[in-house]
């Protein structure tokens, strides 16, 4: 039985760059634990002869041809941006590194 700790929630919030209060962390810890327990019920019906899968339908090799399709203009691309310099998105500087 997996348990979710407040430390794990705080860690996830940090990775997701979401600021949480202690109260919110407590609340989410309880909720996430409940979700985990609900999902874990699946393992009660999973037997060794059921292989783990990430897809409900057994498909493979779905490819497209290497041909240029529709693209957006810079204007269209930036149309939903909260802020831009006309050609690029403007984002708050993040203290971190490119991955």
């Amino acid at each position, binding site marked *: 039985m997996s348990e979710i700790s407040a430390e794990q929630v705080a860690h996830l919030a940090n990775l997701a760059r979401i600021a949480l209060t202690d109260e919110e962390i407590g609340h989410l810890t309880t909720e996430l634990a409940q979700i985990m327990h609900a999902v874990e019920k699946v393992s009660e019906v999973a037997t060794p002869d059921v292989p783990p899968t990430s897809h409900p339908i057994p498909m493979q090799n779905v490819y*497209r041809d290497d041909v240029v399709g529709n693209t957006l203009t810079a204007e269209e691309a*930036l149309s939903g941006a909260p802020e831009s310099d006309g050609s690029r998105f403007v984002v708050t500087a993040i203290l971190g590194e490119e991955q």
Partner: protein
Amino acid sequence: MARAELMDFDQALELFEPVIGLEVHVELNTTTKMFSSAPNPANSEFHGAEPNTLVSPVCLGLPGSLPVVNGDAVRKSISLGLALGCSIAPSSRFARKNYFYPDLAKNYQISQYDEPIAFDGELEVEIEGGKTFMIPIERAHMEEDAGKLTHVGGATGRIQGAEYSLVDYNRAGVPLVEIVTRPIFGAEADAPALAKAYVATIRDIALALGISEARMERGNLRCDANVSLRPRGHEKLGTRTETKNVNSFRSIERAVRYEIQRQAAILANGGTITQETRHWHEDTGATSAGRPKSDADDYRYFPEPDLVPVVPSAELIDELRAALPEPPAARRRRLKGEWGFTDLEFQDVANSGLLNEVAETVAAGASPASARKWWTGELTRLANASERDVAELATPAQVAELAALVDAGTLTDRLARQVLEGVVAGEGSPQEIVDARGLAVVSDDGALIAAIDQALASQPDVLAKIRDGKVQAAGAVIGAVMKAMQGKADAARVRELVLERAAAVQ
């Protein structure tokens, strides 16, 4: 940034064994991106496009957009895996690598994790001087590149002082193959040179396969260098650092060397190495600490639910294997033997990146010696003087034609250099330039003899010396004749004739 204390390289090698590991990213030159039909800026046709003009909803991670795998990118990845001596996975799948940083709008990168397309390879790499090493390849996997951030504001413009960042998603989704080595042991003092030669070998393979532009300065080929040291006689590996931002072949060598010297100084003083990412600074020739490795590596990979497994058929793998070019190390050995070059002559060509040019010039009919001479000599000089790429200055066919004109005696080396200048200036083929500029050697003895007689007549003292047996005095006459012929004479022939005429005239 305080410059770190460094131990002398030789001393560091006495105390410690360097162990390196290399991660190389190769941008594929497909027409479109990995998971979207937007144009691929790593294909030279789309290089230099305006920001955010090579994007589709998939590149921007817009709601409702779905990735579809580029079949050509898969085939090119398999070819690269095979060229690295890897096994190709009968089935491989994509995974989400979750991280929150604006270089990818989705907040995850589609990569491969537990099921890479290629694994367990081995690559023969030759360093300068001819020594070879077998590099163990752990895996090569497919993924997408991230967008480009420009940090603006702050005191230095560097990331620490930035106030905001500008994001261009043109590069987001460019097909990448990441090649990861196993730890490389036994390179010892050659470790820096081996790291450089390994990346150069991958470049050669990518170019021979035609799967990437493979230009480091454009970021088509990028290298992260892991370095650790272990004290002599110890089994356990030391803590490693990963140096990023190494953007030239020379920098790879320098960065590995620097890390060996830096880590050795820390360890010898009783310190410990922090496992971290470090950034290479080309200007100062040093690395600086980046983020610590531990918490940033929490990527929470899981299988990508939007994509299905890649299951290449045996027929496809056989077809791609049959089309593989000759491995770089084997090709070098073959060419060196065929050309009959000394180690030094061959290194001269190989280190200048002119193997293909010389090979094609030889194929076009030139002797290996003259092909080497023109490419590494005059053409390289002209390229340096004009700051151009030597391969852009002339074609192998033009160089072969020039060499043929020299062999036929139509041109002296001196005249050939003038013709080459014309070729570089785009004046046409060597023969056309010879005709247009009237550069051919004067082989008419009558014209030469007339000039010689005139020169001897105007320098009676020289004539007397020659007749007294002071043959070296002939130089003055030869010089005058060459000048009269505007350089278009074969000096050896002129000398023969001068001695003949000096004896003959009264």
